[in-house]
């Protein structure tokens, strides 16, 4: 009896021998997963389309002038349909985001440094998750706490104290009797931004090679000099991306701002941080359901388009920076 070696099959021939069920299963799984991936892409596109579509009447009417126009009167103007402009809300969004970043960024980065380099291991593994838990607290709970606990403290103590010491700078004007206002909202949003910046920057700092850090220390640098000269300077692009991600979180926060910024029907641009105000997101959240007429709804859609554009731009910028940073590192 002669034994012949079985022929060696190429992978293509192997796949040709698959059962029809397997061929169908492979195709079905591929089709299903592709469909899901396409659905994600389509959702983004559909969001953009839907918002612009809803805003079209306002875009046709006001054009880009909407952005610089400071007025929001829903029942006046031609046909009683109201006159609208976004300037006050862009101002409010900018102020709240600026406060959140000015307060939150140094604290977040400092926590990142503490957790990745200064803290003993046991303390870092205990405190790290606690800091990240702050991000898990729902914004509405922070808002409840802000209204009932934090705002009274702001009006009775913090704002008068800031006004007394720094009152010669116009932005620290007369305190707000309610304790609400752009400043209070900005501080609570900072609480939400800190854990984001802390956890990303911690990972960033951990990614700096140990040889570099030890090299700096061996040359006689103090720990801070090592951090400034090696860690911060080598992670600068990543840090900028981190701050942009924190910014995008602050830009889009609707609930806390609605609860604490004290916005209302009047749209005010004043230099005083303690004054009431509205952000793009909070005005949408506040007025969308109760919009008086179709034009106000369209104007609110327009606000959402501006917010969407800001959010997409911030996230795209952060992704681009990270990608370029990774590419340049891979090449090096």
């Amino acid at each position, binding site marked *: 009896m002669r034994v012949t070696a079985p022929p060696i099959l190429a992978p293509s021939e192997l796949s040709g021998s698959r059962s029809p069920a397997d061929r169908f299963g492979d195709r079905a799984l591929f089709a299903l997963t592709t469909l899901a991936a396409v659905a994600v892409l389509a959702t983004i596109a559909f969001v953009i389309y839907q918002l612009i579509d809803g805003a079209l009447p306002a875009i046709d009417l006001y054009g880009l002038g909407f952005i610089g126009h400071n007025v929001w009167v829903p029942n006046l103007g031609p046909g009683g349909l109201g006159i609208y402009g976004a300037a006050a809300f862009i101002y409010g969004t900018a102020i709240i985001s600026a406060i959140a970043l000015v307060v939150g960024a140094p604290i977040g980065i400092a*926590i990142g440094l503490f957790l990745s380099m200064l803290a003993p291991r046991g303390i870092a593994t205990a405190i790290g998750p606690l800091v990240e838990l702050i991000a898990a607290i729902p914004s509405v709970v922070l808002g409840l706490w802000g209204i009932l606990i934090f705002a009274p403290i702001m009006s009775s103590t913090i704002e008068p104290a800031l006004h007394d010491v720094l009152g010669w700078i116009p932005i620290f004007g007369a305190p707000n009797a309610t304790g609400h206002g752009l400043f209070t909202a900005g501080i609570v949003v900072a609480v939400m931004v800190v854990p984001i910046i802390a956890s990303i920057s911690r990972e960033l700092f951990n990614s700096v090679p140990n040889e570099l850090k030890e090299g700096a220390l061996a040359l006689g640098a103090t720990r801070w000099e090592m951090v400034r000269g090696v860690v911060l300077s080598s992670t600068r692009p990543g840090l900028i991306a981190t701050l942009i991600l924190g910014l995008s979180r602050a830009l889009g926060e609707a609930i806390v701002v609605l609860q604490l910024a004290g916005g209302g029907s009047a749209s005010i641009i004043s230099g005083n941080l303690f004054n009431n105000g509205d952000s793009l997101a909070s005005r949408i959240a506040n007025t969308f359901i109760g919009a008086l007429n179709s034009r106000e709804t369209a104007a609110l859609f327009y606000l959402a388009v501006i917010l969407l554009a800001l959010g997409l731009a911030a996230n795209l910028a952060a992704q681009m920076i990270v990608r370029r940073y990774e590419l340049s590192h891979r090449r090096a």
Partner: protein
Amino acid sequence: MTIPADSASPFAASTTWRARRRRGIDRGMRGSATLAAIGSVAVLIWVILDVALKGASAINGDFFTKAPPVFGTGGGILPEIVGTGVIVALATGFALPIGVLVAVFLSEFASPRLAYPIRLALDLLNGLPSIVIGVFVYGLLVLGSGQKGYAASIALAIIMVPLIARATQEVLRLVPQAQRDASHALGMSTWRTTLGVVLPACISGILTGTVLAVARAAGETAPLLLLSSFYNPNQPVTFNLFGQAIPNIPMEIFNDAEQPDLASHARGWGAALVLVTIILLVNLIARYALARQRRRMYR
């Protein structure tokens, strides 16, 4: 040869003011970084303590079994708890399969060139302000026809998909390529390998990621404000997501915080305690589970 007295090393010349200044700055910076960490944990404890103390005094047996009163004290938040449960359950029903399928596509099928735009889209979706997602779903489903519970579910699902997809991708990456190769070598087709070998190895990681996404969605308020906020708060429990707006915990907290009376504030703190307890417990348990799974899979 002599070493100049004020040369760089803080150890050699610790008495010069340059060295002292450098050490002072070093201590100051390290101190303030430590302070920042302690301060932020203190804020967390401050908020949690307020919620726990004020919430605990509002919670009793009725709190989980009755509807909010029409006026005054007493009652509970049963319809709101059930409402959040069904809204989030339906959202999970949408988001879990889509999130897992996208992750499978990215890790098992897509070339890097194809994967990049989809990863980017997931990141962008994750970065969208939740109020914008609320406006989108409002324009899609609510405008002209009124609020519905399922509209809120869809908005929450859009928020959950990128979270579940990312968590799933991370565990899929931990499955050794050798296991896929071994399965193929035994004559298993790709779909059997994926469903029978790869995904079962990841199941606990996928569940953990999903549970974290559920915790995130349960506390979302901005989309619910647009999509499921016009309801009678003391209506009987309803599961009908397709008929009308559904009571839910975030809106209950939001409305209670806006009221002037102490009874509403107490109910708000109680609802906040329920929500925060669920979310923090889920987060702690999921984190612990993730760390354990990761250790096991790396080994």
